[in-house]
């Protein structure tokens, strides 16, 4: 009784108890997982006897062409997908917001798309964009191509168009939903005010609407960026085994029958975690900077 009383009466203890379950999950599985990846990349092998500290895994990763080509591809896919999804998503929201009852229906459609698992999205895009996919068939029907061989490689291509297409298809509705949620009655009122102060259509968009969407859309863009840089199933289904993004490369090394490639898998995993964090951090700094410059 006295213990319970002590726990509930001290705010610090109370907070600690309330936070404990969540922090346990994150501490053990997230921080623990990252620490293990780091330790194993540095030569620690928890189930094998011979453990020694070394940078060998990083050295071999640095010379591995699969890893080297992967970094650029990972960044390209992440940045391009995020940019396209953000621009298109905000554009969709601007079109949809004044539709009246159509706004409700389009919002529901966008939300429905959000629930589609990426794995299914990848399947859909592959059925749509492959050399024998629907787009190719339509192109054939209207005489743009003579056969599936002539259709440009859009899936399993070196650039990653198929992967980007899937991300853009899935994340544009996400950005649109976020932007629509930020287009409230308050925003309408602010736009009305700016009209009475002489702001024309494009001036309203530039000086009122877009700045007001800035924060929620920016936060959502970070989520999209992090996700598109780290997802596994979409690039493994729609991309090539080489060059492949870091998530695929790390799994390739990990599932190698030769257990000595495990440390390199961990090194790539650490690299992926670091890269995602740095990019998200850079993006945040950029947003802060542009906000400060505007004032």
């Amino acid at each position, binding site marked *: 009784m006295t213990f319970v009383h002590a726990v509930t009466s001290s705010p610090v203890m109370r907070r600690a108890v309330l936070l404990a379950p969540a922090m346990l999950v994150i501490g053990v599985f997230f921080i623990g997982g990252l620490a293990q990846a780091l330790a194993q990349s540095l030569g620690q092998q928890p189930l094998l006897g011979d453990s020694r500290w070394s940078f060998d895994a990083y050295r071999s990763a640095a010379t591995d062409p699969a890893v080297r080509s992967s970094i650029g591809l990972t960044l390209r896919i992440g940045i391009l997908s995020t940019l396209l999804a953000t621009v298109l998503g905000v554009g969709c929201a601007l079109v949809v917001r004044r539709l009246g009852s159509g706004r409700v229906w389009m919002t529901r459609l966008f939300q429905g798309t959000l629930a589609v698992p990426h794995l299914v999205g990848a399947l859909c895009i592959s059925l749509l964009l492959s050399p024998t996919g629907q787009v190719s068939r339509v192109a054939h029907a209207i005489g743009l191509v003579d056969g599936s061989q002539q259709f440009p490689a859009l899936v399993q291509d070196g650039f990653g168009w198929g992967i980007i297409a899937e991300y853009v298809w899935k994340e544009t509705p996400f950005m649109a939903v976020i932007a629509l949620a930020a287009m409230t009655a308050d925003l309408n*009122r*602010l736009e*009305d*005010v*700016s*009209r*009475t*102060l*002489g*702001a*024309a259509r494009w*001036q309203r968009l530039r*000086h*009122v609407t877009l*700045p*007001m969407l*800035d924060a929620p859309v920016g936060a959502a863009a970070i989520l999209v960026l992090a996700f598109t840089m780290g997802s596994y199933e979409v690039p493994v289904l729609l991309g090539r085994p080489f060059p492949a993004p870091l998530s695929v490369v790390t799994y390739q090394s990990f599932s190698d029958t030769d257990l000595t490639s495990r440390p390199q898998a961990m090194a790539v995993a650490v690299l992926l975690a670091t890269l995602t964090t740095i990019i998200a951090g850079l993006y945040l700094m950029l947003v802060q900077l542009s906000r400060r410059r*505007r*004032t």
Partner: protein
Amino acid sequence: MRPALQVSGLTKRFGQTHAVDALDLTFAPGSFTSLLGPSGCGKSTTLQMIAGLIPPDLGTVTVDGSDMTHVSPERRPISLVFQKPLLFPHLTVEQNIGFGLRMQHVPRAVIADSVAEMLEQVRLTGLGGRRPHELSGGQEQRVALARALVLRPAVLLLDEPFSQLDATLRIEMRRLVRELHDSTGVSTVFVTHDQDEAVDIADEIVLMLDGRVEAQGSPERLFEAPPTLATARFLGVANELFGHAHAGGFRLAGTDLATDSGAVRGEAVLTIRPEAVELPARSATRHALIVESVRFAGTFLAATGRTVDGQLMTLHLPVGAPLVVGEAIEVGLPADRCSVFARGTA
């Protein structure tokens, strides 16, 4: 002189109801008019139609002689201050005030000067670098005022701008608005549902009821000689006494009062403000009452009394007036403060 603002036949329907019904109003240059009315009477809709934010179904809006009915709001020389300050949260106070000038591509240096001058006028010098969320409610509304006035509009519209502020601040803001009006000479239309506010701030009051103009005139005239019973009621006259109007005056509970009944004859209503009732009676028009209740109301005594025929009258009398519940008194009803209306005109 050409009116600063004129609306003719302005009409807006929402569904079946006429929010604004064939409204005709004229505002002289430099005037300060209060658009007074209960919520839902169409005054805000009128203001938004003048600003161009709501298209009218019928009618025209003319500013300084030019027809603005089909001009978009951003090109009307009209500024509107809303009930909420509606400051742009992503901009500083200075940037908010300079917003309209920036939209007109005015050079930065000129904007800075105008903004500094406006800040001084609304007494916010030194707060230009703040963000809206760092301001108090009153400060926010000052910025909104400055933001509207810096454009030197031909007409300034204010839509219940102080209704979300507390009582003392509201009075202070009224003074400021009046001061700004007097120094700039901008024709001002001030929408409010608060009769005290309308009286305090405006030179002219337009009373709107159900989308129409019920009465129009100076505050004194509307209060002391309301043209209609509805006007009298909205302005808080409180005493409505039934009786008989005739050429010589008004017959109340068997007593003739020498009031001006105008053209009203027969069944009629006499109105008088509680504070106009005299005790002891000085005027010639007098009436007997039985005191029914006396209540101390701070700066005055609020009493009720019944006439011989059982009608209730409310009196506001100076503290210390000789009142005893149940005793008969004779009160004075000054003829010039009584109004007589035909029954059923409400």
